[in-house]
């Protein structure tokens, strides 16, 4: 019996350390919900995206909320989210331009120097007839991240400048979120590191400016996304009112 209880407790403790302050919400009493749903569901109730349990949100949330039944993260508290994610998105955009205009790696071998940027690498795959692969790399490492950054700017800039949200901003935000699993820059960075070591045996490899800006870009992107506050944005982008 002991073995069965230690693992969940340990896991629970890790979760607590990862996002404290931490709070498990209480599921609401059904009677309360049935009474005031009106046109749409009540705003203080959230259905868990993983198990569909209805969780009641407290009035003022300054903690991470977990689903009472399956432990999924329902809400993370994020101060100044619009300003922070806007600043980080602009940073990421600059780093992205830098990463795509300078060579990644240069290889020296017996007087021959071979330089490559991300785009020439993709072009090389295309020339070898691996069109699907070239398109996949282009999508996951260039187009999707770029679309995500442009989308975030489109949403956040008008909100920051205090205007009404841009036309169709809610749809853009939905697409930005849906496309997120297909942006794989951090995986690409891992690929660069593996390739560096792999080729280390064969020739001298000189990492270019791009490798460093790409490394910074990954952190800027991750920070921009983790400082987003989706419930707040959905509320601000809601044009029904």
């Amino acid at each position, binding site marked *: 019996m002991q073995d069965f209880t230690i693992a969940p407790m340990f896991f629970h403790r890790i979760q607590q350390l990862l996002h404290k302050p931490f709070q498990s919400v209480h*599921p*609401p009493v*059904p009677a309360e*919900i049935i009474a005031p*749903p009106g046109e*749409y*569901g*009540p705003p203080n109730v*959230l*259905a868990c*995206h*993983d*198990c*569909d*349990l*209805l969780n009641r949100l407290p009035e003022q949330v300054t903690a991470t909320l977990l689903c009472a*039944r*399956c*432990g*999924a993260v329902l809400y993370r508290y994020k101060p100044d989210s619009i300003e922070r994610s806007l600043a980080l998105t602009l940073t990421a955009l600059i780093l992205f331009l830098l990463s795509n205009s300078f060579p990644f*790696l240069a290889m020296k*071998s017996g007087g*021959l120097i*071979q330089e*490559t940027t991300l785009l*020439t*690498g993709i072009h*090389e795959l295309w020339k*070898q007839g*691996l069109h*699907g*692969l070239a398109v*996949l*790399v282009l999508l*996951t*490492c260039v187009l999707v991240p770029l679309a995500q950054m442009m989308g975030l700017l489109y949403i956040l800039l008008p909100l920051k400048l205090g205007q009404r949200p841009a036309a169709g901003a*809610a749809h853009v*935000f*939905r697409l930005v979120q*849906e496309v997120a*699993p*297909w942006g*794989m820059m951090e*995986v*690409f960075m*891992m*690929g*660069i590191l*593996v*390739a560096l*070591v*792999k*080729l280390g*045996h*064969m*020739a001298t490899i000189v990492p270019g400016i791009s490798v460093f800006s790409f490394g910074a870009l990954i952190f800027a992107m991750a920070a921009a996304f983790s400082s987003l506050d989706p419930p707040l944005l*959905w509320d601000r*982008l*809601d044009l*029904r009112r």
Partner: protein
Amino acid sequence: MKPCAATARQLGLINCHDCHLLITAAQAKAHQHCPRCGAHLHLRKPNSLARTWALVWAAIILIIPANVLPITVTTTLGAKQADTIMSGVIYFMQTGSWEIASVIFIASVFVPFAKLLILIFLLLSVRFRSEWRPKDRTTLYRLTELVGRWSMVDIYVVTILVALVKLGAVAAIEAGPAAVFFAGVVVITMFAAENFDPRLIWDAIEENV
């Protein structure tokens, strides 16, 4: 689980997949799309089990050529050498770079196989309306969703090698046929995980009570 707790489905509410707005079933019927973010509305992901099964089978078929055929073909001074994923791992183990060997092994061999096994396990458990540790099964699902993307590492390594190593007759690396199959496995398993609806795990428990 507290007896007073209810799910959105039991109260006739639909949770928008994308913006988590709760919509009453009557409203959803009239609109079809979420009034706030425009996402297509459904109570559960449509045809979740059938779609996930289909994608899992496709991945099982593709994973065989991905592991048997060569992923890179290296030409060094006229001599050609074809490497499969596993022979690459073994090469690095033998030459002492066990870090690289373990990264490639975990990302390209362990993760895709583990992901397929977990998805099959989840699909079967939903199919047989299992009540076994639903919370852990949900965690397992979250894990497969999170970790799948890292399998792309090998594809990126091949891209970089192909672009960089083209020194004419001295040394050149070409992508082998397995690269395409392997990329197919990664993309298809990602779609499979996306199509599986973890709420089905919990539905079985509520219906059996």
